[in-house]
């Protein structure tokens, strides 16, 4: 697709393109977030077993799902980047990792805050929980590796390799509930044929999932643009951009 472009122009083109896409993602993420959160917190009915503590689900589940989603994105991007030698794909990997890590952290933390009232402990060594913790470690490893390289082209490639190697953990996370008997809930919403959840509860959850996904997209694009700027900072167009922004600041102040 990019073949007809001048090799140096790819990055600049993707920079502008992603800049154009960003507002759209934000336009989805923000309203859905507000609607979903108000609906979930105030309007959805309380669970007959868990009472109002179940409202944590509206961040817990989207965060957990998108944590895995982010990793899958990274794995695909890493594969593309390494096989077809596309540097932009490697940048995507680096751009996504911190967001995935934050989502994973949120899933873990909200899970813990939910577990205390439900199971009576902040933490148990349950398969689902443990595998989520491992996912967090994998994310942190990728981020640390990326930051440790000073040459960001090499850093991107190293992070991509590690991402692919880390894929072995994905099936373990996914099947952990099947393999071990566990305290944690099995699939409830992903059984599409017969969702075992009241629609009143389900709809805000779906809205929140959309919101989290759109926000993921927005942040990936933002960070992706950062990566491009950082790596291309010896190119005339970046320097023009910098000089432009600093002069506009001067005008204002």
């Amino acid at each position: 697709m990019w073949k007809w472009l001048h090799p140096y122009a790819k990055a600049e083109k993707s920079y502008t393109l992603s800049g154009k896409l960003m507002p759209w993602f934000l336009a989805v993420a923000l309203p859905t977030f507000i609607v979903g959160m108000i609906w979930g917190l105030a309007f959805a009915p309380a669970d007959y077993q868990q009472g109002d503590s179940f409202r944590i689900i509206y961040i817990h589940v989207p965060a957990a799902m998108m944590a895995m989603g982010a990793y899958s994105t990274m794995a695909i991007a890493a594969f593309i980047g390494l096989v077809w030698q596309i540097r932009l794909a490697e940048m995507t990997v680096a751009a996504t990792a911190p967001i995935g890590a934050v989502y994973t952290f949120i899933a873990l933390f909200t899970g813990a805050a939910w577990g205390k009232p439900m199971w009576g402990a902040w933490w148990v060594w349950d398969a689902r929980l443990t595998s989520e913790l491992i996912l967090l470690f994998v994310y942190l490893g990728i981020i640390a590796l990326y930051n440790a390289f000073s040459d960001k082209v090499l850093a991107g490639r190293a992070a991509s390799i590690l991402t692919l190697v880390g894929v072995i953990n994905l099936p373990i996370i996914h099947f952990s509930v099947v393999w071990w008997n566990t305290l944690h809930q099995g699939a409830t919403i992903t059984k599409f044929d017969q969702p075992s959840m009241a629609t009143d509860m389900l709809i805000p959850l779906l809205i929140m999932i959309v919101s989290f996904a759109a926000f993921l997209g927005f942040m990936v694009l933002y960070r992706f643009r950062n990566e491009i700027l950082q790596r291309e900072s010896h190119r005339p167009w970046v320097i023009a951009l910098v000089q432009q922004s600093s002069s506009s600041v001067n005008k204002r102040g």
Partner: protein
Amino acid sequence: MFQCKNLTCVREERVLFNNLNFTLAPGEILQVEGPNGVGKTSLFRLLVGLSTPYSGEVHWQQQNIMLDRDSYYQNMLYLGHKSGVKPELTALENLHYFHHLFNPKVKFDAWEILTLVGLAGYENVPTAQLSAGQQRRVALARMWFSDCPLWILDEPFTAIDKNGVQVIEKLLIKHAEKGGMVILTTHQDLLLPPQLYKKLTLQKPAAGEQYV
């Protein structure tokens, strides 16, 4: 035939050189010159395929070296700033290892070669216990039994004494006479007669070329 086509090197956001071109034919010696930090080592690491250029290609016998590393490496000997000698092994063991890994088909007598590089009597001392110059000599010994036509030497004379430098220069001439090629850097003046070698002087990019 060794060709360097439109090579551009960018390190940490700085352009070191831009669109570098040169060709080396059999029998030629090329000295790459330039002040500290101009990019000689960076260039050499591109030439041997240890790092990937920002743009441009290096060709060996009309073939991009990145596409066929093995056949390139069968014909190329690189000695860098780091010597690649294992300090806990003796000089003899190091040579044997190099021989088996790089030039398994060449017949050679390790003791003889160690004598030639001035290490007679030190054959069985762990390399870590040799002096800086002696350690360097163990690495340089590879030139004495290499059958590769292309030698790429990054400051081969560091830590070598005067007599040693002369001996190595003679070896380079002999190699070129047999149809080999040599690319080297050094901050000392070569003692070779000027008609025997070409020079390539790297310079800091001019103001207009700082950004690509």
